[in-house]
């Protein structure tokens, strides 16, 4: 400040300040007051501008940076959204696949239950009745009958009250014929589910079961039925040694 000395040097700064505060209506004082007024005005305006507007007061470069930030963020969010919807698709398809697999498994369980004789079965079939009052027929004849029925496509067979499955055995004993250890009496009633015509034809062929029984003076008859109910059940025995092996490829 190259201003000339205008105040006496013996006054303290505080006294000078008080002196300056004394209003003197000189042109310079008024101009200074005006400038201070402009400063206060501009200060307040700028503060309000800064508080009010966030974007309009920014420079071009700042705006570009903000725009870049926003687009980058948009891209990030879009890729995240794509990733999440892909995951969702995946989960939906896998749950569908799991349901389909469960349905397929249930179908197989039903089929296997009929094969294993653990579930009752119904459908068209034949009833084969073999009467042998004089006990001239052996277990072999009954086994032949079962084989004939199987050859003709029987899907579920029972003899009297015994379900015939893969392990069923016909044994001649002193008391009579046992099927899986259970004594059966004449007349032996076979119930078989399958194509009725095929089965009755197969039973009736020359050298077939019916002819064989009649040759030995027994009475045998087969009738085709629209509905046969095989409700004799076999209790599955828990395998003592065999365990299910892990399949090499998982079931679908």
């Amino acid at each position, binding site marked *: *400040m*190259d*201003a*000339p*000395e*205008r*105040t006496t*040097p013996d*006054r303290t*700064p*505080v006294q*000078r*300040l008080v002196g*300056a*505060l*004394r*209003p*003197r*209506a*000189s*042109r*310079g*004082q*008024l*101009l*200074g*007051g*005006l*400038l*201070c*007024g*402009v*400063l*206060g*005005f*501009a*200060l*307040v*305006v*700028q503060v*309000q*501008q*800064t508080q009010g507007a966030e974007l*309009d*007061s920014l*420079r071009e*470069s*700042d705006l570009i940076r903000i725009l870049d930030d926003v687009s980058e963020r948009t891209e990030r969010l879009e890729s995240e959204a794509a990733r999440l919807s892909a995951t969702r698709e995946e989960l939906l398809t896998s749950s569908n696949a799991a349901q389909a697999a469960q349905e397929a498994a249930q179908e197989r369980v039903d089929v296997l239950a009929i094969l294993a004789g653990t579930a009752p079965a119904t459908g068209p079939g034949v009833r084969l009745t073999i009467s042998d009052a004089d006990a001239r027929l052996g277990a072999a004849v009954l086994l032949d009958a079962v084989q004939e029925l199987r050859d003709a496509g029987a899907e579920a067979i029972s003899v009297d009250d015994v379900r015939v499955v893969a392990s069923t055995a016909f044994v001649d004993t002193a008391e009579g014929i046992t099927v899986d250890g259970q004594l059966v009496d004449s007349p032996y009633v076979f119930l078989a589910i399958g194509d009725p015509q095929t089965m009755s034809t197969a039973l009736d062929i020359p050298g077939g079961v019916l002819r064989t029984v009649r040759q030995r003076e027994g009475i045998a008859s087969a009738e085709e039925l629209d509905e046969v109910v095989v409700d004799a059940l076999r209790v599955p025995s828990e395998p003592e040694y065999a365990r299910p092996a892990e399949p090499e490829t998982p079931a679908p």
Partner: protein
Amino acid sequence: MIAGIGLVVGIVLGLLLQPTVPPALQPYLPIAVVAALDAVFGGLRAVLDGIFDDRVFVVSFLSNVVVAGLVVYLGDQLGVGAQLSTGVVVVLGIRIFSNAAAIRRHVFKA
């Protein structure tokens, strides 16, 4: 005294009128305000030093504002507006601090 009254009147006017800054002036107003603040602190220090002069105050005030605005304008034209504004604010801030320190020494003797 008149300067203090002027400051108060300006603040009140700004609060009452709530004008919007024209877009052309927007980059320069903040710098101009900081430059004017520097001039005001310089003037206050001059008062305490006993060398205050109305004419010097007016000229330094106006020249501060104009030069600050010019520097920012030039920076904008050169493509370094943001950096130059920061530089101007830093320099003016340093000056304001040194003036405030001188004022403090006068008033509190410390």
